[in-house]
């Protein structure tokens, strides 16, 4: 479904990603793990068109490489960025509506789904996004992404700042979303949980893929254990 070949990306003159090759099949959950500054977020930004890149990215046989970010969203590739990026002077409800900017027909249905997942958002419908707590904003960001009816869901550290209870809720939700037919590319520092729910995973180190395999394989890989799981 998503095929990335020879991807190079960076900021200005600084190259961060080199020669990345990744593919995702429909219905998969794929994790990308790596230490801080390895380039995980950069990879997601390149896919969703926030930053320019060279190489080829094809999604459902269409090239995304030259498309602008908003065109990529139209194709169903939805990115929940790290750092939440909430519309801070809009209410929670308006934030969610902006998520559904492109697929207004499924709006009510999607909204129900989001409210069921994160009841606090329904409760705080009228609060300004910027005044929500860190974790609440994270929920809002995920909810807002869901409002766009993604086909491919790019999640950047969705559990960041969430309580253990909600971390579980989110991982369960990712599974459920995936079950409903959405392909997921997941970047997480919570390596254990993310690999556990993933079909496959990649390990990225200073901008290159150094390891790949099924979730199970990676979890049992001694290097992964040492580097990310603290074992």
């Amino acid at each position, binding site marked *: 479904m998503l095929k990335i070949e020879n991807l190079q990306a960076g900021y200005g003159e600084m190259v961060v990603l080199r020669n990345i090759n990744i593919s995702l099949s429909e219905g998969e959950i794929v994790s990308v*793990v790596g230490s*801080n*500054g390895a380039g995980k977020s950069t990879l997601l930004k390149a896919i969703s068109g926030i930053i320019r890149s060279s190489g080829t990215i094809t999604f459902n046989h269409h090239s995304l490489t030259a498309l602008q970010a908003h065109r990529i969203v139209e194709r169903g590739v939805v990115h929940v960025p790290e*750092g939440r990026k909430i519309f801070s002077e809009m209410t929670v409800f308006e934030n969610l509506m902006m998520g559904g900017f492109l697929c207004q027909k499924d709006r009510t249905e999607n909204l129900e789904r989001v409210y069921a997942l994160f009841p606090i958002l329904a409760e705080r419908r009228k609060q300004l996004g910027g005044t929500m707590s860190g974790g609440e904003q994270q929920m809002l960001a995920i909810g807002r992404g869901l409002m766009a009816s993604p086909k491919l869901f790019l999640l950047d550290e969705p559990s960041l700042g969430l309580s*253990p209870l909600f971390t*579980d809720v989110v991982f369960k939700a990712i599974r459920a979303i995936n079950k409903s037919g959405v392909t997921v590319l997941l970047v997480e520092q919570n*390596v254990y949980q993310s690999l556990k729910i993933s079909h496959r995973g990649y390990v990225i180190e200073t901008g290159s893929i150094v390891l790949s395999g099924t979730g199970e394989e990676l979890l049992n890989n001694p290097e992964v254990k040492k580097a990310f799981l603290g074992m």
Partner: protein
Amino acid sequence: MSEPILKINKVSKHFGGNIAVSDVTFAVEKNRIFGLIGPNGAGKTTLFNCMTGFVPITSGEVIFNNRKINNLRPDAVCRIGMVRTWQRVKPLSSLSVLDNVMVGAFAITGSAGAARKIAVEKLAQVGLADYSAKLAGSLSIGLKKKLELARVLATRPEMLLLDEICGGLNHTETASILQLIRDVREEGTTILFIEHDMKAVTSICERIVVLNSGVKLAEGTPAEITSNPEVIAAYLGGGFDA
């Protein structure tokens, strides 16, 4: 039991009709690592904001070193020895990583040379030495968290308020940061620690307060907290196995 350095006395904070913190009372003893946990939106960050003068307290008092500091400005709070990090990181984006930490170090020295020395040392401690010349704004999120830590350490605080400093770090990196925090404690700093990573919290904190919807739910040792059924229901859920 040693003298408490920080006393939170019936502190409340309302935002319009929204009660973020309600009548919270607890005390932190000198030279302890004290945990502050609770579900999202429980009021932890708000409590930090109240203590450091970023938002006015609705009622109650904050006492630091036997001094009431309710109405102190943020910079004054820092100068009497209490420094916080930001959950939503606030790098000084177009300054270099080194300069960021030097700004922290200037709290204890007037000389640029001395500040630079302290900064270099702290950057090495948190593992950012290789990044000193980079612009702070260009760091990845995990690295920015480390920068936050280095910057407050450079102020040599008497008390450190850490807001999810390990968020965005993996287990291995978290472990090294935790070790660093222990070292800092050894040097005489008291630490109040907000974190959702329960493994980290239980492994490092000697005492923990749990907030829920702005109210103090429980207080105790890690063992007491993790076995408290109310805490499990409100916060930990079934997924946690310590």
